[in-house]
């Protein structure tokens, strides 16, 4: 009789139980990996959402301050300085979000900087702009374009949100 061969129904049953246990553990591990991966994705999505919301607030604040600057009676150098700094910070922070490429972001960032600082900015010939006029509308439009780009990129990355 071959000693390596199971010699009874009981030994076969023990082998099947061992295999069943291994399969169970493999399924448990795979399940854990899937749940863990989904959890990490949810955390990543929430963190990105929070950062995007903060960015949206920063952009809307910048828009508000820029409109305040251009609709004021007099040129305000202190406000101009804070606007230049805010644009630079926003530009860097948007790139750090990592939602869009620089090729996608730069034209929108440049449009925003131009809308706010190319004309009637840091200028001796400063003149108050009409709050409902084309100049102010361009600032709001370029801000909206940048926010729209970021939101659309967020939806592409997290389609179920």
């Amino acid at each position, binding site marked *: 009789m071959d000693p390596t061969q199971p010699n009874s129904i009981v030994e076969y049953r023990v082998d099947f139980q061992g295999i069943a246990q291994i399969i169970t553990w493999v399924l448990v591990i795979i399940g854990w990996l899937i749940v863990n991966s989904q959890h990490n994705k949810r955390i990543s999505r929430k963190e990105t959402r929070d950062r995007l919301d903060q960015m949206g607030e920063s952009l809307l604040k910048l828009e508000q301050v820029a409109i305040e600057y251009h609709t004021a009676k007099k040129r305000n*150098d202190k406000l*101009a*300085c804070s*606007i*230049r*700094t*805010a*644009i*630079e910070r926003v*530009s*860097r922070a948007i*790139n750090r979000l990592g939602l869009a490429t*620089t090729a996608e*972001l*730069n*034209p929108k*960032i*440049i449009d925003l*900087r*131009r809308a*706010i*600082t*190319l*004309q009637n*900015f*840091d*200028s*001796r010939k400063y003149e108050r702009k009409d709050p409902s006029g084309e100049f102010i509308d361009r600032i709001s439009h370029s801000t909206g374009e940048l926010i729209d780009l970021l939101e659309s990129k967020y939806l592409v990355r997290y389609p179920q949100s």
Partner: protein
Amino acid sequence: MSTKKFIRLAADFSRYPAGRYVKDGPYSGERFREEYLRPVLDKSEQVIIELDGTRGYGSSFLEEAFGGLVRCGYSVEKVKSAFELRSSDSSLIEEIMDYIEHGSDST
């Protein structure tokens, strides 16, 4: 072997560059162009311009400083070959190159 010179805008000119014309303020784009950029072109030198370190830039400053060179009569090719721009914010470099290549038409 000649090494390129550096213009560190924040250290050599101002941390607060602002305005288009000299009459707009002490650290305007016009002044930067006349005192720092045109001499480089007139001597046919090549210079690296480091843009980091300031408290931001207005487009009026950038347009007058760099786009203004082409309006002064320097060719686009000469301006582009004379200056190597460096910044951690690539949108600044892209905007300046647009002013050099297209001037105020790009706005």
